[in-house]
C-alpha cells in the first residue's frame, strides 16, 4: 500500500471499503499507517529552488537603542501605556538611535495598524527597517529605499510618503518633480499628493498652489487654498488682508476703541477664488459667515488686541471672535492667541459657549514654547481655567507650566475634583519629568478623595516612568 492509498482507506473506513485480501483489515491499515508515516517523515526531501538573490541590507549607520530601551519598546507594543509610544519614538529619533532588528516586525505591524504613527516610526527603523519594509507589501509605507523610484512607480500611499520625504530633503526640487507630472496625474492622485506640500511649505510654492486653486477637483482646490492661506506673504493673503481691513476698522478713543464693521453684501468672485465657501453653515447668517471666513484668512496682527474688547460692543461679536481666532491659529499669532485665551477666561462660564471659538484649538496651533507662555498667563489668572486648557494640550509641557499646574492642583481638588483628576493625568503624560519629585510630594500629601489620590499617585508614577524612559534613550 502507498501512503496515499492508506489515507484513502482510513478516510473511507474499512467497514465501507475493506482492503482486498486482508483477514484483519483494520490492523492492516493501522500497520501500514505506522510504517509508512515514519518512512515518510524520515525520507522527506526538501523542495529546491533557486538560491534567493535578495539584496542584502547595507550596514546600519546609526546605533541601536540600549537593551533597556528596547525592552520598554516591547512593553509599549504589548499595550503597556501605549499612549507613551509616540514619545519613545521621538526620543529615540532625537538621539539618532534605531530599533534593534528583532523588534522591527512588531513595530512595523503596529505602524501598519496605526497610520498616524508612521512618520515617527520611519525615523527609528534605520536602514534595516526600510530594507525589511521593502520585502513586505503591507509595509510599503516604510519602504523608501529609492525615493525617486517610489514616487514614480509606487502605490498611491507610497508615492505620497515618498513625496513627503523628498520635500523634507529639498522642497524646491520635490515641487519640480511634482509639477512635471502634474497635468498627467489623475484626480485622485492629485488629491492625495497636493497635501504633501505642507511639508516644507514656503513662498516658492505659491505659483503652483495658485494654479491648483483652480483645479477641476474640489479637494485639490480646497487643499491648495488652505496651504496658500498659510503663506503670510502670498498674494492671496495680501488680497484677503485688504478685504478684511475694509470690512473691519478700529478707531482708538479715550474710553477704549470702537469697531466699524461692514460685512460683505455678497460673496463676490474674488472671495470665492480666495477659498471663501459661499453657502453658510446651518443657523449662521450669510454675511456673518463670509465675514468670519475673510477674517480667518487675514493675519490678525492688522488690528490691536484691544479690538477684542471692542468687539463686544458690536452686533457681530461671535463672528469677529470666530474669524480672529481662526486667523490667529492659521498665522500662529501668539499675542492674539494669548489675548483671546485671556478674554475667554474672563468671560463667565455660562457665557463662554457664545464666544464661538475654542481656546484649545487656538492653542494647539501654536508652537510649544508659545503655548506654554499662554498657558502660564491663563494659569496665573485662573488656576481652574489654566488646568482646563492644559489638560487638553497634548504637547510636552515645559518645566514652568508643569510646576504651575502641580501647584494649582491641590487648590483645585475640592471644588473641581474631575478637572483636577484630568489635569493630574495630563501632568503624568505631558508634564516635564524633571519635576517628578514635586509630583511625589503632591501624591504624598494628606489624603483627600481616594479617586483623586490615585490620580495624583498615577501621575507621579507616569512621570517617573517617562524619566526612566528618557534616561534609557539618552543619546
Amino acid at each position: 500500500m502507498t501512503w496515499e492509498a492508506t489515507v484513502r482507506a482510513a478516510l473511507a473506513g474499512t467497514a465501507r471499503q475493506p482492503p482486498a485480501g486482508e483477514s484483519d483489515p483494520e490492523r492492516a491499515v493501522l500497520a501500514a499507517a505506522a510504517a509508512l508515516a515514519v518512512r515518510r517523515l524520515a525520507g522527506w526531501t526538501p523542495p529546491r529552488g533557486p538560491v534567493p538573490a535578495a539584496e542584502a541590507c547595507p550596514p546600519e549607520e546609526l546605533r541601536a537603542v540600549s537593551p533597556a530601551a528596547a525592552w520598554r519598546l516591547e512593553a509599549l507594543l504589548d499595550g503597556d501605556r501605549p499612549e507613551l509610544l509616540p514619545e519613545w519614538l521621538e526620543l529615540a529619533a532625537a538621539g539618532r538611535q534605531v530599533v534593534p532588528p528583532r523588534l522591527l516586525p512588531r513595530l512595523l505591524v503596529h505602524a501598519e495598524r496605526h497610520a498616524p504613527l508612521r512618520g515617527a516610526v520611519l525615523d527609528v527603523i534605520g536602514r534595516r527597517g526600510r530594507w525589511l519594509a521593502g520585502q513586505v507589501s503591507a509595509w510599503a509605507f516604510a519602504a523608501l529605499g529609492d525615493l525617486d523610484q517610489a514616487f514614480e512607480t509606487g502605490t498611491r500611499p507610497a508615492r505620497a510618503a515618498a513625496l513627503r520625504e523628498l520635500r523634507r530633503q529639498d522642497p524646491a526640487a520635490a515641487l519640480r518633480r511634482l509639477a512635471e507630472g502634474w497635468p498627467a496625474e489623475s484626480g485622485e492622485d492629485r488629491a492625495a499628493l497636493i497635501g504633501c506640500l505642507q511639508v516644507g511649505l514656503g513662498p516658492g510654492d505659491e505659483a503652483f498652489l495658485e494654479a491648483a486653486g483652480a483645479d477641476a477637483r474640489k479637494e485639490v482646490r480646497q487643499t491648495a487654498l488652505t496651504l496658500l492661506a498659510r503663506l503670510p506673504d502670498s498674494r492671496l493673503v495680501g488680497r484677503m488682508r485688504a478685504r478684511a481691513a475694509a470690512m473691519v476698522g478700529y478707531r482708538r478713543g479715550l474710553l477704549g476703541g470702537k469697531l466699524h464693521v461692514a460685512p460683505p453684501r455678497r460673496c463676490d468672485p474674488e472671495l470665492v477664488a480666495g477659498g471663501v465657501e459661499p453657502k453658510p453653515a446651518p443657523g449662521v447668517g450669510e454675511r456673518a459667515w463670509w465675514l468670519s471666513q475673510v477674517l480667518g484668512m487675514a493675519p490678525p496682527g492688522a488690528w490691536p488686541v484691544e479690538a477684542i474688547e471692542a468687539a463686544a460692543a458690536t452686533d457681530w461679536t461671535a463672528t469677529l471672535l470666530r474669524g480672529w481666532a481662526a486667523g490667529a491659529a492659521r498665522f500662529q499669532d501668539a499675542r492674539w492667541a494669548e489675548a483671546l485665551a485671556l478674554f475667554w477666561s474672563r468671560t463667565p462660564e455660562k457665557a463662554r459657549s457664545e464666544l464661538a471659538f475654542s481656546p484649545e484649538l487656538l492653542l494647539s496651533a501654536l508652537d510649544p514654547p508659545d503655548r506654554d507662555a499662554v498657558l502660564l498667563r491663563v494659569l496665573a489668572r485662573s488656576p481652574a481655567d489654566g488646568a482646563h486648557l492644559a489638560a487638553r494640550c497634548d504637547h510636552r509641557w515645559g518645566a514652568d507650566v508643569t510646576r504651575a499646574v502641580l501647584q494649582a492642583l491641590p487648590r483645585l481638588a475640592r471644588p473641581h475634583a474631575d478637572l483636577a483628576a484630568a489635569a493630574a493625568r495630563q501632568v503624568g503624560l505631558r508634564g516635564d519629568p524633571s519635576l517628578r519629585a514635586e509630583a511625589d510630594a503632591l501624591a504624598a500629601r494628606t489624603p483627600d478623595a481616594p479617586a483623586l489620590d490615585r490620580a495624583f499617585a498615577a501621575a507621579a508614577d507616569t512621570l517617573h516612568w517617562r524619566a526612566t524612559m528618557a534616561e534609557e534613550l539618552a543619546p
Partner: protein
Amino acid sequence: MQWTIDQVVALAPDPAAARAGRDQADVRRWSALGRAEAAAWGECRGSAAQPYRTCLDTAEPAFGCSCPSRKLPCKHALGLFLILAGQPGTIAEAAPPHWVAEWLAKRAERARKSAGPAAPAPAPADPAAAAEEQARRARRRQGRVAAGVEELALWLADLVRNGLADLPGRPRQFWSQPAARMVDAQAPGLARLVGELAEVPHSGPAWPDRLLTRVGRLHLALEGYRRIETLPAPLRAELATVVGFTESREAVSARGERVAGRWLVLGRSIRQEERLRAQRTWLLEAATGRPAMVLDHAAQQQPLDPSLVPGTAMDAELAFYPAALPLRAVVVERGEALALADRFPAEPTAAAALRGYAAALAANPWLELAPLAVRGVLPCREDAAWSLADAEGARLPLANETGGLVLLAVSGGRPIDVFGEWDGLALTPLGAWADVAFSTIEAGP
C-alpha cells in the same frame, strides 16, 4: 556574567509577570539595597505592612522573596534583577544582612548535598516486605497498563473501521473519553497522545495526513508494548516513556548517562497540556553538537524552572534519561551562566540536518520534536509560505509567519544560523545567530 535586560526579562514566567516586574524595577520602591559578589538584595514596599525581603543569586540564577506570590521569580525578584541589570550604579556593594547570609548559606548547603553522594534512604523496618510491596504495586500497574493498551487498540480499530472522514464533526468527548480512560489505566503518555488528536481535524488542509501520522505512531506504541519484553533495552526504555512510565529525576541523576561540557542554551518553548504547562529547554554541547532537552512541568499557576536562559551558556554536567535516543536530561551540576559569545554547532546544509533527523527517527520512531540547527540559511517567502533556503537552494518550511519575519529582520538579507524544533513537516525557530550576536526568536503563533 553581566546580565542584560533581555536575559532578565526572559526569566519572567509570563508576559504579565514581566510587566509587573518592570513596575517594581523602580528604585523608589526599594530600601536597603545591596550586593556582594553574585548576590543582590533589597526590601520592597508592597501592600503589606512589612516590606518584602527579596534576594537573588545571579550566578545560577536563583531567587528568594518573603512575598506570598507563587510565581518564580516573583515580581519583586524580577524588579530587583532588572534594577541590577539596567541601573547597576544604584545598588552599592555591601555586607549581606543576616537574612541574606542565611539564604545563601542554605543554598550552599543544598548544593553540597545534591553534589555529594545521595544520603542513604532510611532503612525500612522489614526490607523484604517493603520490596515485595513495591513489586506488587508495579505488577498491579503493569496489569492496568496492559488492559489499557488492549482497550485503546480496540478504539483505534473502531476509528479506522468507521473512517476518519466525519471526525471534524465529533464532539470533544469523542477524544477526551479515551484519554481519560488511559489516565485511569495509569498510561499518561498514551492519554496525551490520544488527547492531542482532538485538534488535528481542525488544523486545516491535509489534516487526514497529519492525523494518520499520529494514529500510526500510536498504533506502533501499542503493538510494541504488547511485546515489549522482546525489545532491546534502549528501545524498551523509550517505549516505556511513550506509554507514560517515567524515571524520577533522582534516579536519573544517580544512574543516568552523564555528559559534562559547555552547554549552550538555545531555545525554549512552552506547550499547554491538559491542566499543565510543559516547558522544553533545548541545549547543545559546544564541542560535539550533542543535543539535550530539559523538560519541566508546572500546573497552570505554578512557576516553571527559570534557571536555563536562552542565549546563555554554562559549564555543566547533564544526566540523560535512559532512551534509544537519549535527549531528555536533567542538569546535575552547573557553573554560572555565561554570555553566548560564539556561533553554535550546526549542520552545514538542510539535507545534512534532515539526515540527522532521519537517523534520530530510526532510533526513536515516536520522536515528535527534534532539535535542528542549520548553518548559513536565508529566510525567504514564496507564495505566502515562509522557509529557510540553504546554500544549495533547499527549502526548510517554517511553522509560522511571525518567526519568518523576525528571522528576516535579524538576517538583513545575509545567511544566518538557525536553531529550532523540527516536527517532521516544519521548523519552529527558537534562536538565531546573525551578524555577531544570538537572538532569541519568540515562538509566536
